[in-house]
C-alpha cells in the first residue's frame, strides 16, 4: 500500500467513523445521561463532523492527516473526550511518520493508550475509555508481534477485545470521569467513552477490510 492509498484509507475511515457517530449519537447520549451529563453523543458527533470537513481540505501524509483529525477533535469536542481523543491522536500520529506498517501501527496504538492514561490519569478498571483501549491495544500488539498475524487479522481480534472491554465497564464502579460521582450507583451502566471507542475501531476494521 503506497502513501497515497494509505491517505485515502484514512479519509475513508474518518468518513465512516463520522457516519457511525451520527447514527449512534442518541445512544451515546443516553448512556451518558445515566451516569454523566448527557452530551457524549453530541460531543463526538460534532467533533467527527469537524474532523471530516478539515480532512476534506487537507492532503498529505498519513501522519499529517491523523494529526489534523486530532486537532479538529481538540478544538471541537470539548469536555473530557476532546483532549483525550484529540490530544492522543495528535501525539500518536508522530508514530506514523514513516507510513502505515505493521510496526508503526503497533507503536501508534501503544502511544495512543499511553497518552489517554496520562492525560486522564486513568488506569484500566476505572470504567473509562481506557477499558476499551487497553485490551484492544494489548491484543493487537500480541497478534502482530508474537503471533505474526497480518495487521488486518490482528485488528479483527482487537475489535473483539475492545468489545469485551466495553462489556467489562458495566459491572464495575467508576473511579474517573463524571460517573465516579455516583459511587456505587455507577455499577450496572456501560461507559459512553468506551462505547464510542469500540464504534471507531469497528469502522476502522470495516474500512480496512474493503
Amino acid at each position, binding site marked *: 500500500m503506497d502513501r497515497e492509498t494509505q491517505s485515502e484509507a484514512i479519509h475513508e475511515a474518518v468518513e465512516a467513523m463520522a457516519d457511525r457517530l451520527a447514527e449512534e449519537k442518541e445512544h451515546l447520549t443516553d448512556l451518558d445521561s445515566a451516569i454523566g451529563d*448527557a*452530551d457524549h453523543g453530541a460531543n463526538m458527533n460534532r467533533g467527527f463532523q469537524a474532523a471530516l470537513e478539515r480532512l476534506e481540505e487537507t492532503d498529505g501524509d498519513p501522519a499529517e492527516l491523523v494529526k489534523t483529525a486530532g486537532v479538529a477533535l481538540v*478544538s471541537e469536542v*470539548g*469536555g473530557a473526550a476532546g483532549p483525550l481523543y484529540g490530544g492522543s491522536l495528535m501525539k500518536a500520529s508522530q508514530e506514523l511518520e514513516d507510513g502505515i506498517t505493521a510496526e508503526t501501527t503497533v507503536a501508534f496504538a501503544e502511544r495512543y493508550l499511553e497518552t489517554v492514561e496520562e492525560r486522564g490519569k486513568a488506569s484500566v478498571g476505572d470504567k473509562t475509555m481506557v477499558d476499551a483501549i487497553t485490551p484492544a491495544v494489548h491484543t493487537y500488539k500480541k497478534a502482530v508481534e508474537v503471533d505474526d498475524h497480518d495487521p488486518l487479522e490482528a485488528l479483527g481480534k482487537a475489535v473483539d477485545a475492545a468489545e469485551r472491554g466495553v462489556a467489562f465497564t458495566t459491572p464495575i464502579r467508576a473511579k474517573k470521569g463524571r460517573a465516579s460521582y455516583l*459511587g456505587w450507583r455507577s455499577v450496572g451502566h456501560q461507559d459512553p467513552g468506551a462505547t464510542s471507542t469500540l464504534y471507531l475501531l469497528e469502522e476502522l476494521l470495516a474500512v480496512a477490510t474493503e
Partner: protein
Amino acid sequence: MKKLINEPEAVVDEMLEGMVAAHPELRRLEGTEVVVRDDAPVEGKVGLVSGGGSGHEPTHAGYIGDGMLDGAAAGEVFTSPTADQLSEMIQACDGGDGVFCVVKNYEGDVMNFETAVEMAEMEADTDVEYVVVDDDVAVEDSLYTSGRRGVCGTIFVHKVAGAMAASGGDIAEIKRVAEKTNERVGTMGMALTSCVTPDKGEPTFDLGEDEIELGIGIHGEPGTERTEIMSADEITEHLTEAVLEDLDLESGSEVATIVNGMGGTPLMELYVVNRRLQELLDDRGLDTWDAWVGDYMTSLDMMGCSITVLELDDELKDLLAAPAETPGLTVTE
C-alpha cells in the same frame, strides 16, 4: 420539552450575541465563544479568566467586569470549552502582567485548561497560573472519584481573586487568595427536577413525583442520594449539615453564605431556604457577615438549590466587600 430557543446547535452562539447586545461593556472575540471586557487586555493588572460549559448562566461571562473577570470562555452546553479557545482567551486578557485562570474541577475543564496553558506559554510566552476549585462536599475526595467538583463556591473565588487582581496583586498573590478561598468554602446542592438540555430536549435524569436528588451536580449528573421529598426546612438542614460537617468551623466564626438557585426555582423559595439556613448558623454560634440569595451558578432549568458557606477572615472580608460591577453581581462601596 418546550424551550425558548431556535436550533439547539445555535443556542450558545445566539446567547452570547444576546449577551453582548445587552452589555456593551462586553466584547466577543471574533470567531470564538470567548467573551472579554471591551477594553481587554487591561494594562497594569493581572488578567483574570474563567470558563466552562454553558448552561450555568450568569456563570461564566456574567461575572466579567470591574473587580471580577476579564474574560470567560463558553463551551457547548455542559461541555468544557476547547483548549484552542481557552488559549486565545488567555492571550487576549494578558495586559503584560500575566493571566490567572479559575478552573472548576471537572476532568474536561482541567485537561482543556492544562492544554491551553501550555499553548499560551508556547505561543505567546504568557505567564499563566490557575486554581482548580473543588467545593462540592457531596463528592467524596478519594481514590474512587475524580475528586470533588467545582460548583457555586467558584463565584466566591471569582470575587476574591477579582478584587485582588483589581487592587494590583500579582499572580502569586491572586493564587494565594484563590486557594485560600477554595480551602475554606463548601457547597452542597439538591434537585427537585432534572434539567433539560437543548440538545436532548428531555430530562437528563428521571425523578419520581415524590423524589428529590441530594448532592446533585450542576450538569444534571445524578447526585449521591435519592430520597423522598422533604420540607424546605428539612432539605436546608440536610444541606447545611453536610457543608458544616465538611468545614468544621469553630463557634464564633464569621461566614458568607450563598443560597443559589439552580435556574428553575423561584426566588421566593430561595428566601424560604435562606430563612432556615440563617437560623441554623445562628444556632451554632456562627456569624453571617454576608448572605447572597439568587441564581449564581445554574443548571439550565433545573429546580433545586445549593447552599454554600465560606469561612471568612479579615482579608477575605475586604476582598468580598471590594467594589465589583458585572452583569451578574454588583458590589458598591
